[in-house]
């Protein structure tokens, strides 16, 4: 099996703080692989190392067979990056930002022009091509970042907390775009601390805590390991959750206990809590 992303024993320290303590994972072509973890778990450090923005202290990273250390330029040509913060030229237009990106990736002028038309149509900004980036809304800027990352037809798309700070409606439309990207064959590596984002988008999820991958699996498998249903109850000013395989078992448990209960389905937050003893958000 040829993996699109291969990472082995990635390590990074910032002074005495260990940001990554030997992370390893592999992602298949066309897969959406999500990194789920709280702030400071090492999500952004991983993505920065994988996109060449930060050097690792040790470990191997390969994209489509190219090593970041041995073939850095070929490696970089394989991916597109949507960073956590907006890094567009605000004083330039939508089109100018995209043209600069095309030139950076050695695309021909005609190809850039055609691809810009295609992508602006794709993200719903076709009528804003001459608009200065500073006049776009937050959601439009996020979509433009995705279009820019896709301009050179990368094999891998890195998304670092793509929907942070966006309202729920815009977040949903962004998820639609990411699904579409996967539908066209790209491999997606996504970091997030939004449970629903990982549940909705990811084929596989890795739980990251204190610079290490605690576990990785399909979201449904991770959740089914602790049950199907959860009951939340307030105990000594803290919410405590109990997990059950069936709704009937949960209701039976509630009927013999006192207090106020909330019955709900198990989510990835529960699975994360069960594995790490911590909450994601």
């Amino acid at each position, binding site marked *: 099996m040829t993996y699109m992303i291969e990472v082995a024993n990635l390590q990074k320290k910032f002074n005495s703080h260990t940001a990554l303590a030997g992370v390893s994972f592999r992602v298949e072509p066309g897969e959406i692989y999500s990194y789920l973890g709280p702030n400071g778990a090492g999500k952004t450090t991983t993505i920065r190392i994988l*996109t*060449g*923005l*930060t*050097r690792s202290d040790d470990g191997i990273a390969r994209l489509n067979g190219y090593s970041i250390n041995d073939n*850095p*330029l*070929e*490696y*970089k*040509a394989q*991916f597109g*990056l949507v*960073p956590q*913060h*907006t*890094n*567009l*030229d*605000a*004083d*330039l237009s939508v089109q*100018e930002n995209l*043209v*600069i*990106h095309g*030139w*950076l*990736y*050695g695309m021909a002028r005609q190809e850039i022009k055609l691809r810009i038309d295609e992508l602006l149509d794709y993200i719903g900004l076709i009528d804003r091509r001459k608009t200065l980036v500073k006049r776009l809304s937050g959601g439009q800027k996020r979509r433009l970042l995705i279009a820019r990352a896709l301009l050179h037809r990368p094999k891998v798309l890195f998304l670092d907390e793509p929907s942070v700070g966006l309202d729920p409606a815009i977040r949903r439309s962004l998820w639609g775009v990411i699904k579409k990207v996967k539908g066209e064959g790209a491999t997606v590596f996504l970091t997030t601390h939004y449970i629903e984002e990982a549940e909705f988008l990811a084929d596989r999820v890795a739980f990251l805590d204190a610079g290490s991958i605690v576990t990785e699996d399909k979201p449904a498998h991770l959740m089914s390991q602790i049950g199907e249903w959860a009951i939340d109850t307030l105990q000594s000013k803290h919410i405590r959750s109990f997990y059950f395989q069936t709704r009937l078992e949960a209701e039976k448990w509630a009927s013999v206990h006192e207090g106020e209960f909330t019955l709900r389905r198990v989510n990835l937050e529960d699975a994360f809590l069960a594995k790490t003893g911590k909450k994601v958000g």
Partner: protein
Amino acid sequence: MIRGWSAIYFREMLILRRRFFKLISAWSVSPLLYLIAFGYAMGKGVVVQGHTYLEFLIPGLVAMTSMTQSFAIGSEINIARFYWHIFEEFQAAPISNTAYVFGEVLAGMTRALLAGCVILVLGALFGVVLSYNPLFWLAFLLNSLVFAALAVGLAMLIKSHADQAMMTSFVITPMAFLGGTFFPVEHLPEWAQKILWFLPLTHASDAIRASAFGVMPEAGNYLILAGLAPLFIVFAVISVNKARN
């Protein structure tokens, strides 16, 4: 090795085009004040090296501008780096550090060239037209190459906009006043002249002024600038490489 430099250069030119008239105005203000205050008012009737002070001053201002405006690319880089985070887009792209340096240095030189032309137009308005021959432009371009490369290198080492301003205060401003811009370096004591010999601007002022006066400039001035340029380019490439950490 330098594939992708055009994207870096193109971006800087788009930004320059967007602010063109503002920049032209900004580039005109200081030289205009220097010309009025030092050249026209204070320097009236003063003869330096056989020329009116206004004639002496204009090549000095051109040399100074080639330094300050090419060095100003450092500020643009830092705005892109600290404020817009554009530098990360370049770091993640499949271009070499050399290509990045090449694009930014060329942008700095272009900026200096345009600002230099503004001085020549202002000089012409004051009735001073000197000899703007190939040796004049060669010294101009070498000086702007030296300072653009230095600016790119330093821009990668500093940690904030405040550091950038400090760099200008401690490196550029003293050089602007002491590098043979406003007075002949020979007017200073010999020990001071020896120190000023180490400043690139002293050599640029000498070469630009001599060629503008139609005198054969000293080859040593060009050799020193041509020697410093690759050194600063290497420094810039190493600094860009270091900035990734």
